[in-house]
């Protein structure tokens, strides 16, 4: 058992798989010599050599396209897109090529690849370096989407993503990089598509993801003191989506709240809400309420960035007033 930061867990997960399978390679901007601009790939080049861990030009279409082509031809490559906002610069490769190729070729082409990227706000970087784009990826058929909230999940889900035969978008949350957690020794491998219930309650269900999980837990603790007892579910992966865990919780609690960092419209919370409003309608005792970043780009100034991203207080207030 070791205490690792979330950022160290990224390197640990990748290293575990690179040591196990020589077909695993990593490319991206500043990932090799510099160990990543978020220091998430530190030590990998030293350990696995300059061919398996390689710096690229600033060419996101090349990075993603090459990862795709290499996955077609016997490698299991990992590509880093430094900030998830930059996925927009290669969205054609991601959404139109990587996601669709297996289907469009009638299953001829398998793409065992991972695209990792630093996602999310809270770093005062402004609108082009702070987005939570998990909903962009979720909207594209053919992409699996992973967004862990703890170091141990980072390791296990990274291994699961790398071993998965399908393309995985792996979103590492910037605001969590410095957080710490216990990580067991030895090989860790998680299956994609399993949510975790991190708090158990009976009055309402909160579904959260990535950096929203600790906030939801904080809110749950405050609410518990007020006599409102809530389930907190960490989705961990958006595709596959663990509908079973969400639905069985709502069946018990009768109320659903989602906590999303992505801007309001067409977020993953809307998808979860629409599933519950369809499949669990008769279990519901009240409105489904989504707690999201407003439908705006994230501002840079700390004072207002903190107002935009859902906080424990906002979660508490929303649930409290909705449960009255």
């Amino acid at each position, binding site marked *: 058992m070791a205490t690792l930061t979330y950022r160290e867990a990224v390197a640990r997960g990748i290293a575990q798989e690179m040591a196990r399978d020589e077909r695993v*390679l990593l490319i991206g901007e500043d990932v090799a010599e510099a160990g990543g601009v978020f220091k998430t790939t530190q030590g990998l080049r030293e350990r696995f050599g300059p*061919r398996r861990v390689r710096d*690229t*030009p600033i*060419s*996101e*279409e*090349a990075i*993603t*396209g*090459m*990862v*795709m*082509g*290499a*996955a*077609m*031809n*016997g*490698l299991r*490559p990992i590509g880093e897109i430094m900030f998830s906002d930059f996925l927009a610069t290669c969205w*054609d*490769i991601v959404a*139109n*090529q990587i996601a669709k*190729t*297996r*289907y*469009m*070729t*009638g*299953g*001829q*082409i*398998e793409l*065992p690849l991972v695209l990792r990227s630093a996602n999310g706000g809270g770093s005062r970087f402004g609108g082009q370096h702070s987005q939570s784009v998990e909903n962009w990826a979720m909207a594209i*058929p*053919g992409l699996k989407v992973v967004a862990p909230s703890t170091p141990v999940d980072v390791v296990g889900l990274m291994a699961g993503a790398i071993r*998965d*035969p*399908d393309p995985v978008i792996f979103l590492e949350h910037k605001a969590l990089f410095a957080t710490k957690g216990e990580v067991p020794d030895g090989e860790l491998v998680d299956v994609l*598509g*399993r949510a975790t219930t991190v708090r158990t309650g009976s009055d309402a269900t909160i579904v959260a993801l990535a950096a929203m999980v600790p906030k939801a837990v904080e809110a749950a603790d405050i609410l518990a003191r007020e006599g409102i007892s809530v389930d907190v579910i960490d989705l961990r992966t958006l*595709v*596959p*989506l*663990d*509908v*079973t865990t969400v639905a069985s919780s709502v069946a018990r609690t009768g109320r659903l709240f989602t906590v999303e960092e992505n801007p309001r419209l067409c977020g993953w919370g809307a998808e979860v809400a629409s599933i519950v409003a369809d499949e669990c309608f008769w279990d519901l005792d009240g409105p489904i309420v989504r707690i999201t970043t407003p439908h705006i780009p994230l501002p840079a100034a700390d004072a207002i960035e903190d107002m935009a991203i859902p906080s424990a207080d906002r979660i508490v207030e929303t649930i409290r007033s909705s449960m009255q």
Partner: protein
Amino acid sequence: MIDTSGAGTAPNPRPASGIPTEARRAMYSAMWRARVFEKRAYDLFMSGLVKGTTHLGTGQEAVAAGFSTAMRDDDMVFCTYRGHNHTLLRGAPMASLMGELLGRESGCCRGKGGSMHLTDVEHHAMGSYAIVGAHLPVAAGAAWASQERGTGQVTVCFFGDGTTNIGAFHESLNIAAVWGLPVVYVCENNLYMEYTPISSVTAVPNPAADRAASYGLDRIIVDGNDADAVYEAALSVIDRARAGEGPSLIEAQTYRHYGHSRADPGKYRPAGEVEEWMEKDPLVIYRARLEKLGFPAADLDRIEEAARAEIDAATEAAKVSAEPGEAVLMTDLWADGGSSWRR
């Protein structure tokens, strides 16, 4: 770059330029197979049996023939929506391609890809890509895997003149050059994008060749209507790539006989232009050359007839095959064979 058209008049089919007889026969057959395949695709489109769209490479067959003949069996090809010729000549069975055009389950992609996505991985035809430029970095990636795995494979990536103005072209050529990847980029310059002439939107006269220097590469132009010229150029750049000497960029100058796609009559082309290029029809000039080189006319006739018989049989097979159903529809999004997004 290389022109072997005046290559001697030996009575036997053994050309002065050193291109083996078998290669020449293969190229002639390849061009005819491509020609009849696309003619049939066109007819079936006009009669409503091929739906959606088709983009014919008719007139450009020498490029596909020259390259496919020069490639090693396990070399990989990436091409565009105008990819019938390349996929066929890598070895994809005609019937499976025709099945795909007709939207049948027997199609190479089970009907899910359609005309713009012909793919036959078994024959190393790694896909036809319908968004301009997207396959250039993918080809680089396939080549990167060959390099890392030491397979000795070369990747050949075909695209059009219009593709040279999109960002992915630039990113791909640069990284391929920097990493010394075994990939050959082949621009088939047929003078037009969809309906707009390439010259009206490009800062240099030769959209690919004039940009090779930006990537530290040689400026290579080849007569894309001359199968021999293409073949020799192909051999040289493929050898180079296989030897670890890095990528090449070739501009093959050619012309499409039909319009851009579907029923486009190509009215935007100036008077006389089509006629001029019809005189340079790669099949016609190649037959003339082969006859001059001593290939018996009857042999050549037999090659043409074999192609016609093959397309007839392929069309029949495709026509009688079943349409895909819901099982195909919901299949093969994921490696587990299914398409479920939930657990």
